[in-house]
């Protein structure tokens, strides 16, 4: 029983399998960003993105001088766009970490060409998300008061500890698989150059001995095991900054898993977008295939359904008895109806349809779905935050938040910083994990297939890859 998809798989495998020069091919492709000089388009993109980031910093300085009123805040909209940015950016980071960690733990060898990019995305986004705490604060220069006078009963202190720990873990998780690659890379750049020296230091004298390999493998398994609960804790604690208040709409026991799933959903989406951009930019179609996008698309769609379920669970439980329905009315039919239904359509229905429909189940379709999910989930965060913040708790009018050029510019700067930092980062490190790609071989990294498929392939007398025979 071979479906068309599996047939496609087999074709792909047979196209690649007999190729003996896998190693050199991987090395050439992974080092493409380091060895070649950046082209004109790269410079244009980097300059434009830098401009946006600089504009954002300027807007922030303006905000520091003139107060947070310039960013649209007021007493009834005390939390708004910046806390949504913190939640959204740290959220997408989780997707990067989990694609790598879960797939590593479950032995999914097809992850090999994706891990480096997704780990890099995780690192960059957690740094940006953490940085958004500064525009969120009225007195950012006093930030270290959290260290000097911590109140351990405050969820924000837990946030600080959780985010700091997670950031550190993400950095380690990014660096460890890089060690063997650095050892390879130092021989592929000009000897004695600055980069060769940097790679040499970062490679920590990696020789690729059995002992070193065993050690690295064990450490990676441990950190993969650590990073999953760590990320769960980060998003749970982030949700408690809301859920541990007495506000209807926030004081919900569903909030921790709600935030965790939102993070995974949007994060998987951004992984798809990231690998699409890099695949296109560095012509990695040979290694990152449509099948990768489809697999990630399935993951994303499943998470999307869970997230839709949690949204319904939250609103139905709150709304049914009619005690605290104000924010639900505002969300469904009031002030926040347009962004909310935008999320329902662009953040759930359309992306899942794109995954379900065969016609769009390819790299492009998945990327469009990914972009929609990332944008919609940011909007969803706004819809979670604003109605509960602006509701009147005693009587009187609903408050409202108005987007201003300051908050928009600062947020766009964060958005621009993701591709900017990734583009710069991947000028210094290989695009794919050379070591993992070589370990799993062409068959494993392009596609991990079941025994049945292999058997079917044998029956159709398709020459088998040499690695598989020796097993």
């Amino acid at each position, binding site marked *: 029983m071979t479906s068309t998809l599996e047939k496609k798989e087999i074709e792909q495998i047979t196209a690649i399998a007999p190729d003996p020069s896998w190693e050199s091919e991987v090395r050439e492709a992974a080092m493409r960003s380091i060895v070649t000089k950046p082209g004109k388009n790269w410079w244009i993109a980097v300059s434009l993105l830098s401009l946006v980031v600089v504009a954002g910093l300027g807007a922030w300085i303006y905000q520091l001088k003139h107060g947070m009123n310039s960013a649209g805040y*007021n007493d009834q909209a005390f*939390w708004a766009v910046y806390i949504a940015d913190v939640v959204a950016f740290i959220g997408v980071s989780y997707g990067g970490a989990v694609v790598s960690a879960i797939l590593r733990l479950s032995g999914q060898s097809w992850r090999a060409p994706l891990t480096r990019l997704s780990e890099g995305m995780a690192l960059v986004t957690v740094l940006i998300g953490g940085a958004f705490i500064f525009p969120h604060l009225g007195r950012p220069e006093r930030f270290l*008061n*959290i260290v000097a006078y911590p109140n351990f009963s405050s969820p924000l202190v837990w946030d600080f500890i959780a985010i700091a720990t997670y950031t550190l873990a993400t950095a380690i998780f990014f660096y460890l698989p890089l060690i063997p690659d650095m050892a390879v890379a130092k021989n592929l750049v000009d000897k004695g150059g600055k980069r060769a020296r940097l790679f040499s230091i970062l490679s920590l004298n990696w020789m690729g001995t059995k002992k070193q390999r065993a050690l690295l493998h064990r450490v990676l398994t441990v950190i993969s095991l650590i990073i999953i609960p760590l990320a769960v804790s980060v998003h749970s604690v982030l949700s408690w900054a809301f859920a541990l208040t007495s506000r209807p709409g926030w004081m919900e026991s569903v909030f921790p898993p709600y935030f965790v799933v939102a993070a995974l959903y949007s994060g998987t989406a951004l992984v798809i977008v990231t690998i699409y951009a890099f695949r296109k930019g560095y012509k990695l179609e040979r290694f990152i295939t449509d099948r990768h996008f489809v697999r990630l698309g399935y993951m994303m769609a499943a998470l999307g359904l869970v997230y839709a379920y949690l949204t319904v669970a939250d609103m139905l439980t709150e709304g049914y008895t009619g005690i605290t329905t104000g924010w639900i009315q505002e969300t469904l039919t009031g002030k926040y109806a347009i962004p909310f239904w935008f999320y329902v359509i662009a953040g759930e229905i359309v992306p899942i349809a794109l995954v379900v429909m065969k016609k769009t189940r390819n790299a492009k379709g998945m990327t469009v779905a990914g972009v929609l999910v990332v944008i919609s989930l940011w909007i969803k965060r706004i819809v979670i935050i604003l109605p509960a*913040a602006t509701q009147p708790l005693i009587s*009187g009018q609903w408050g409202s938040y108005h987007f201003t050029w300051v908050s928009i510019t600062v947020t766009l700067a964060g958005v621009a910083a993701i591709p900017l930092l990734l583009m710069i980062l991947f000028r210094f490190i290989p695009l794919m994990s050379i070591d993992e790609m070589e370990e799993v071989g062409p068959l494993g990294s392009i596609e991990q297939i079941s025994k049945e498929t292999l058997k079917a392939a044998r029956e159709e007398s398709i020459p088998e890859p040499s690695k598989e025979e020796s097993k």
Partner: protein
Amino acid sequence: MDERAGESGMKLLFNKNQHDIDGDSENANEVSRRKFLKIVGVGAGSVAAVGAGIELIPYKAWADSNPNGWGGNSGVSGMSAATMGSSQEVGNHQWAMVIDLRNCDGCKSCTAACQKAHYLTEDQTWIRVFEMGDSQGNTYYMPRPCMQCENPPCLDVCPVHATFRTDQGVVLVNQGRCIGCRMCMAACPYQARYFNWKAGAKYPDTGVAPTPEFPVPQRLGTAGKCTFCVGNLNHGLMSECASACPMGTIYNGDMITDVAINSLGNTVKLSKFLYENDAVAYKDEYNTHPRVWYIPGHGQNLDTNATTG
């Protein structure tokens, strides 16, 4: 300070020699705390039936079951003994407030006086007069200062201990430490927290640095709220809002001396006044234990006051 006091026509409030703390009541209060929580549960149920959305806990129910609670002759409240007893000294005063809604006509003189004294912006209504509706479609007015909770949610969530509670039971903000995260605004069920979003009203430079008791001028990017005018109270003066109220709606009170006074010069025995007038604590089922009590009403006394006051 004295100059400002003269301006707003303050009245001498408390005699400092009046207080007599009964040390023997400590143990009784430990027990009464537990009883109190039970009563709160019962009270919340019965009140919820009256009006949805308005959460009131009757003072009477608590006092009936706590003959030794403050208001008897014990001095310190059972509530405060539990919330402060072990970790904090109990001060020489326990400041409280009674807002008699039978007298409020919603003129907002309290808000104006407060904003003037603290050089606040128009949005910063540390005492805000809410227009409330009842099930019959009538409206009444409800001034809302900071409730000075015995168990303040804003204090629990503040990441840097910028919010603290004094030994006189007043919750204050150290604006020199506040990082401006606004978690307190999220946590306060009374919407009593305000932020300095933009530069405040013009402030004549007196050369005196702002303190948590008198945080003037407000600092940009930090949280602020009603201070109960604790500086005034400790100097035997009334709070700005109470002294500015033309109707005598707002009483400043002390739970240790068990006295309360309003701008019309009415001096009452605090516990008796609360008991006899069916005073309630607002949203006490959030476990906040406010030090501000309301006497329910809709301005029905206004005519009487005008003649007798």
